[in-house]
């Protein structure tokens, strides 16, 4: 790269004040043409606010943005796109009921005949090896395919700067590989990429430079290839990372949760059913379920939590009690708690206070309802404990759940279940979208819960997470569960093969072993 070229993007002294928080404090850094530049930081470090200002969704209170060496004021996203700035959002800004083509057309500023647009879309897809049918309705597409729409939409504008906001948080390892290939190709053609993530091994694999934000300030700029994941994580959280403390001499008790012959019906024609799943988890054991997204993980969680009932009461037993025909409330009373993957609207109600959200799942186990009336004092006290013990950044038990950032809400939800001391805890994607510090805290809490004698089931797409956390694991593919493997004996290759199933060829499954373990630890 020519060092004489002006910086593609140069930020100096960008400051943004929200009521009560200084989201960005004199942020200064620059991105070279063709650079893949990582923006790292914990939840709430101000990354999203910063890129929103670059993309013109918000205006900075102070500071300057220069693009290709010229000072610019970016008043709205339209102007950003005109400059050549494209953005792929973390939460896709897609319209489910519309087709891929219509979705892309909406992101274009000029009106183009749909036939011409379709031709251009096909061109871009061929050029970057992206596969997508422009006529499909978005609602029928997988998460990875949806992200491809956003990428195609951004690439159609021939951007000079592409902003990617946590693009891999919902992708499978294979999809991540494919995405990185595309991004490297985009960068090789001179487009700079601003890559926001907190998956450090990905940043090491992909990015040329990293700017680390903490509390709205730039704390470091470094070359991620020269750093360890751990050193970057520590700068990100501003403290040294704690390793998960596991007792090496831990022993397991009797099987607590026994699942055998568990089957459910598919919810709709696109859904995946759970078929003849069987496993058992002993007291003190953490059992992991790996798998590529969309292989029945959610159906399995619903079947275990009691949201979807099976046909056989003996299919699930907890310390000998048959649970198969009990609903969630009944299972919770007997000691089986579950945390679904989707935080908003499933694990928590956004428009409720945290205390009310506590009542929803802890009311029976912690006697928050007396004679049909809510004991709001007990709910508040318990919620306060969750906030304190899990370091949830919230104003208090009466904050709205929707006012918390994703990672903080996840900490709250995990804390709410763990402090109920369930004898079996089933969690799906416990650290999805959660930063390294918080993830480590959640992992430690799960390990401690197991050490206290609970049986834990962790369903996750993050192999690193499962390998760090679990004692035994199995792989789910097309709704069927593989045999149970000891974590020591499970090789990444074997797991990859099991996960691949019909969804991917073994060559595609290449996971950087150990790369992320230091972060998760």
């Amino acid at each position, binding site marked *: 790269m020519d060092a004489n070229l002006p910086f593609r993007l140069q930020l100096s002294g960008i400051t943004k004040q929200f009521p009560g928080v200084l989201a960005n404090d004199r942020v200064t850094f620059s991105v070279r043409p063709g650079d893949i530049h990582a923006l790292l930081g914990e939840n709430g470090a101000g990354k999203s606010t910063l890129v929103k200002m670059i993309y013109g969704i918000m205006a900075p209170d102070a500071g300057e943005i220069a693009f290709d060496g010229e000072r610019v004021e970016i008043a709205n996203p339209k102007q950003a796109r005109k400059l050549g700035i494209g953005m792929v959002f973390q939460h896709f800004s*897609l319209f489910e009921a519309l087709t891929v083509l219509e979705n892309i057309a909406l992101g274009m500023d000029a009106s183009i005949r749909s036939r011409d647009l379709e031709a251009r879309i096909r061109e871009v897809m061929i050029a970057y090896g992206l596969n997508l049918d422009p006529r499909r309705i978005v609602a029928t597409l997988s998460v990875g395919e949806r992200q491809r729409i956003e990428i195609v939409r951004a690439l159609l504008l021939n951007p000079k700067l592409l902003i990617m906001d946590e693009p891999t948080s919902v992708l499978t390892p294979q999809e991540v590989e494919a995405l990185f290939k595309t991004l490297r190709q985009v960068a090789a053609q001179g487009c700079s990429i601003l890559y926001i993530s907190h998956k450090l091994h990905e940043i090491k694999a992909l990015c040329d430079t990293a700017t680390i934000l903490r509390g709205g300030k730039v704390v470091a700029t470094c070359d991620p290839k020269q750093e360890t994941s751990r050193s970057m994580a520590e700068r990100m959280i501003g403290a040294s990372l704690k390793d998960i403390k596991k007792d090496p001499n831990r022993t397991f008790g009797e099987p607590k949760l026994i699942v055998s012959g568990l089957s459910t019906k598919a919810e709709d024609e696109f859904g995946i059913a759970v078929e003849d799943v069987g496993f058992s988890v002993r007291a003190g054991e953490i059992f992991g379920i790996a798998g590529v997204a969309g292989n029945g993980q959610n159906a399995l969680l619903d079947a275990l939590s009691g949201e979807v009932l099976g046909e056989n009461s003996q299919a699930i037993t907890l310390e000998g009690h048959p649970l198969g025909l009990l609903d969630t409330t009944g299972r919770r009373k007997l000691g089986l708690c579950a945390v679904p993957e989707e935080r908003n609207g499933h694990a928590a109600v956004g428009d409720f206070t945290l205390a009310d959200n506590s009542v929803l799942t802890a009311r029976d186990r912690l006697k928050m309802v007396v004679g049909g009336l809510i004991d709001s004092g007990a709910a508040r006290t318990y919620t306060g404990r969750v906030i304190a013990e899990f370091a949830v950044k919230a104003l208090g038990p009466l904050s709205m759940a929707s006012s918390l950032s994703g990672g903080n809400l996840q900490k709250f939800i995990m804390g709410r279940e763990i402090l109920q001391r369930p004898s079996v805890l089933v969690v799906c994607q416990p650290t999805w979208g959660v930063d390294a510090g918080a993830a480590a805290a959640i992992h430690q809490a799960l390990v401690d819960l197991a050490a206290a004698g609970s049986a834990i089931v962790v369903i996750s797409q993050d192999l690193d997470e499962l390998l760090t956390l679990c004692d035994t694991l199995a792989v789910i593919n097309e709704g069927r569960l593989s045999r149970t493997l000891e974590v020591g004996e499970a090789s990444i290759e074997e797991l990859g093969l099991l996960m691949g199933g019909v969804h991917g060829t073994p060559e595609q499954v290449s996971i950087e072993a150990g790369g992320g373990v230091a972060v998760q630890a």
Partner: protein
Amino acid sequence: MSTDLLIAVVITVIGASTPILIAALGELVVEKAGVLNLGVEGMMLIGAVTGFIVMFTTGNPWLAVFAAAVAGLLSSMIFAFLTLSLSANQVATGLALTIFGTGFSALAGQEYSARPVGIFRSVFPAELAGHPVWRLVFGHSPLVYFSLIMVFVVWWFLKRTRPGLILRAVGENDLSAHSIGYSVISIRYAAVAFGGAMAGIAGAAFPLLLTPQWAERMTAGRGWIAVALVVFASWRPFRLLAGAYLFGLVMTVELYSKAGGGPLSAVPAELWAAMPYIATVVVLVLISLRRAGSTSAPACLGKPFLATN
């Protein structure tokens, strides 16, 4: 049944369907933008009284329809300001608009009740418009042709034009539309204004097309039928046309049953009169019974939009 009577029945059905169709088309566009305006009945009454007064004083039906559209539009702006600018609850505001429209029209029309006006007749030459058979094609009020053209226009606008796509996008996911850079609030204002104008015209069809006089609450709940019809039609303009004509047919049967004689009188007239409303309830129940997720309702329907910054 003689051909003559059959033609007369068809013309009556078309006439009875037209105001519902016009109002429902307006509401369809409003709902596609993600706004639920339950004030259709009220805006129709305001349109009806305005149309009547202008017709009565000027005798010009075109001016009357135009004035009714403006009146409907202005009344819808009250709703738009409250729900879009101030984020008031849409259901409550819509109901308030209906109550307001009912009261306002009764007040404004007080002096005019039971005074006759002219009908908004076909503009085609009398040989065609009055021809025993060709009147089936040429004998309708301009409002009828307007409603049919608008079915096509609304379909074409929503399905084939870029502004229509943007409008649907706003109704489907307002936050995404905002983050792409579309002004959700102004698009919704425009949609509500269109719905208001259409409701006003639909209201004017009552004195100009159906009963050439002013009577309090003369729209008789047709605005509600229009709202239900939008759901019935799954937000599709051509299904809306079919639905509106179906309701028109039921209402015409009621008329003929009152005239007495024939097999219709076997059922009490009151039951026939209740038929459109019963049909509305049945349709709404049937639609709710369909599996969740398969409805084509705009995803943001009725939800207020609050920009986060």
